[in-house]
Structure formats: C-alpha cells, structure tokens
C-alpha cells in the first residue's frame, strides 16, 4: 500500500470495483480496500441482473459467472394467482455473485487498480477541514493513506458517509430485513423465470423470492419490515414449511442483511468525497435490486471523478455533477418508486386478490419504474383502493 493515491475506494463490491475499473482505465491511481477476507463472499444478494445492466457493466452474458439464464418473471398475489411480467429485452441472468464479484475485481486490477482484502477503513483523514484520506486497519497495523478523492462503496452498513457529514442514516423505514437460503434439490415450476410471492401475511411490506440457479437449485429468500416483531428467518421458514416442493430440498448456504428501500440522499458528495451503491441507498425500493443501479451510477461517478482529477479540482462544486446526473438519470424515478411503495404497503392482501384480475404485468413494471400516474389509475379503478391515494405524497 503506497501512501498516496488519486482515489481510495472503500469496499470491494460491484459499486467499488466497477468504479475502480473505469477510473484506473483512464490512468488514475486507484486503491480498493475490502474489509472481508474474500471479495464476493459471503453474498448478500438474490443474484439477479438484467441483460442490459450486465452489458452496461462490461460483460456479455457468456462468462462463467452466469448460473442461469432468465426469460421472465412471475408475481404471485396472496391467493396464488400468477401475474406474468412482460419479457425484458435480452432477458436476464442469475449470477454466481462470488465469481461475478471476482471478475469485476480481476478487471479492476487488470486496468491498474490496486486491491487489498482484510483492509478495513474505520475513519477518514482530514486536512484543513477537508477530507484528505482514510485510516486503515491492515494486517494488525493502522495506516494513514492519502488521496484526492475518497469513495464510500462499503455497502448498506457504511458509516463513512456520516463521518463525511452526509445524512445517510438508515431507519426501519428505509431498509428491509433480508434473509435467504440457497437451496438444492427443490421443485421449480419454471427454472428460467424468477418467481416472487406477495402478501403482508407471508412477508410484511416485502415479498418472498425464488431466483433459480439451475433446474433444481435456487436462492429462496425474503425481505420484510424489520420492525415487525418477528424475524425474516421466521417468516421464510414458515413459508417454506408450507411448500412441500421447497421443504424437501437441502440448504447449501444461508445469507442475510439489510436491503435499502429508499432514503435517497439529495447530495452524495462533499469536498473530496462521494458515496455510491448500497452505501448511498441506490437500490430500487420496490424490488430491492441494486446491481442495475450500480451499473448506472458507477458510470456516472467515474465520468465525474476522471474529469475532476484532470481539472485538479475535487471540490464539492465539481463532484456535485455526480448528484445532478444521478438524480436526473435514476434518482427522480427511484424517489417516485419509493413513494409508490409507501402506498402499496398499505394495501391489504384481500384487496390485492380482488384487484388482481384487472392488473397486468406491465402495471407492475410501471410501478417499480416509478410511474405514479399508473398507480393513480389503478387506485381510481379499484373502489376499495381509492382511499389510499392520500398516501401518495
């Protein structure tokens, strides 16, 4: 580890390594610090990604981190009725995240970034009232490493943005409690589709998912409101015990973690600092997907950072372009999606069942895409739901 870099990236997940790759490829001196002993494991992810999002991250879909190709998605309402979502261009994939994250790290390293594992950034360094580097615990030693820009990409539990002065605090309102098994020898109706199960009874405020990684292998998981009183594990175990085709399977991995569902930051930057990925809450609040968001924001962040280093101006004034571009391209819609979630969580299971027949797959895509006018149309057309319109603020 040298004493000085252009950029220090805290966290070796996709947000960190993708940004690292793009910056290093333009000749910037980049350091990536991952606190865990292995990049990519343990996963905290259902491992799904769309084809176009994978292309944006620089891959083709032929790499060996692809576990399964996906050609569609089915949403099951509480009474079990399926709603099939329209096919997406190029479909999607279930990844082997452990391998995918390694590929991203290989490519970042190949582009010239330097990566260390078991290197924990526990504080920031300041100089003249401005962020100037990171305090790192590595190999039992404390090191001070300086850089022109620090990027916090260390996930949902990141404290670094708050140390930098940004209001990134989570509340039970802005993150879900997630739990997942990777299971083998289970029955999957259509192993090339993702299956999601809605209902406040089975998953309060969230849903249960089956993301197939093979014909009889899948990530079976749940996200719920973490102030519900019962654990995510309780709800998932209960649901699995009612599904003989899942219950008969074996558990080969257990995962858990917080899933951001809103609380977007108006500003994700300050002088010499920006935050990205789960650390910046860049996740779709309705479906909880973060990889697609990262494929967009890494591109935006890298562009702004490369320019800032070139201009020799890494002040907030320059980095603020990252905020502007991100809000324009992603944030405004995600904020609307968050508002839609706040309405949808009020809908009773029985009312979802009643409304289901008038509900199309495209409607669900539109709601996850932040199309509030579609929500208003649905509410108005269903007398039992019309009063919920008051929650759309």
């Amino acid at each position, binding site marked *: 580890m040298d004493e000085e870099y252009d950029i220090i990236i805290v966290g070796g997940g996709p947000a960190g390594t993708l940004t690292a790759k793009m910056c290093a490829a333009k000749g910037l001196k980049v350091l990536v610090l991952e*606190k*865990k*002993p292995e990049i990519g494991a*343990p996963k*905290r992810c259902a491992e799904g990604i769309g084809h176009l999002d994978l292309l944006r991250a620089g891959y083709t879909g032929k790499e060996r981190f692809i576990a399964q190709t996906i050609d569609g998605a089915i949403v099951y309402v509480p009474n079990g009725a399926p709603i099939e979502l329209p096919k997406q261009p190029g479909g999607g994939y279930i990844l082997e995240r452990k391998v995918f994250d390694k590929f991203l790290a290989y490519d970042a390293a190949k582009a010239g970034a330097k990566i260390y594992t078991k290197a*924990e950034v*526990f504080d920031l360094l300041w100089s003249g009232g401005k962020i100037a580097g990171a305090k790192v*615990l590595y190999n039992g030693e404390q090191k001070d490493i300086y850089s022109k820009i620090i990027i916090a990409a260390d*996930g*949902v*539990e990141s*404290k670094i943005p*708050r140390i930098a002065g940004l209001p990134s*605090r*989570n*509340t*039970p309102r802005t*993150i879900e*409690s*997630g*739990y997942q098994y990777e299971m083998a020898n289970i029955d999957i109706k259509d192993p090339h589709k993702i299956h999601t199960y809605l209902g406040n009874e089975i998953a309060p405020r969230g849903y249960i998912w089956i993301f197939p990684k093979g014909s009889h292998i899948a990530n079976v998981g749940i996200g719920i409101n*973490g*102030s*519900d*009183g019962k*654990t*995510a*594990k*309780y709800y998932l175990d209960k649901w699995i015990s009612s599904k003989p085709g899942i219950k008969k399977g074996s558990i080969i991995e*257990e*995962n*858990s*973690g*917080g899933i951001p569902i809103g609380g977007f930051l108006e500003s994700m930057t300050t002088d010499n600092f920006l935050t990205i990925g789960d650390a910046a809450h860049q996740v779709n609040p309705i479906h909880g997907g973060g990889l697609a968001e990262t494929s967009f924001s890494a591109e935006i962040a890298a562009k702004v950072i490369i320019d800032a280093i070139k201009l020799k101006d890494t002040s907030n004034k320059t980095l603020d372009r990252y905020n502007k571009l991100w809000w324009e391209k992603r944030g405004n819609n995600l904020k609307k999606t968050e508002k839609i979630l706040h309405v949808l969580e009020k809908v009773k299971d029985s009312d979802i069942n009643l409304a289901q027949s008038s509900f199309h797959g495209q409607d669900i895509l539109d709601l996850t895409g932040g199309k509030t006018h579609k929500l208003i149309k649905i509410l108005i057309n269903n007398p039992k739901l019309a009063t919920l319109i008051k929650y759309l603020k």
Partner: protein
Amino acid sequence: MVLKVDKNKCLSCAGCVSICPNDALTLRNMIIEVDENKCSECAICIHFCPVGALRLTTNL
C-alpha cells in the same frame, strides 16, 4: 443492560450495523462488536436482525 450477540446464530451480515441509530455496532473480522458507550439499548437492532441473534441482557 448490555447488548449481546449470539455467535451461534449470527451470520455476520451487519444488518444490525446498518440499522443502529447510534453507530454503536461494527463488523470487524467477521464478528459484530458492540460499543457499550454508544449503545442506547433502543432494541431496534434486535427487531431488525434477520436471524434473531441479538438480545439485551443484564450485565453479569
């Protein structure tokens, strides 16, 4: 009261770290550490933990 982590249940996912309103928790070397000076015993993490690995107990 002190916050205790049941290591037999904990998956080191840092869900509790992400929800703690006081930044009293840290995942270090794959173990959750509790800063008792910062912990306000609010129990938000106890409810949030996906596997129910946290509890408040008397300091004995």
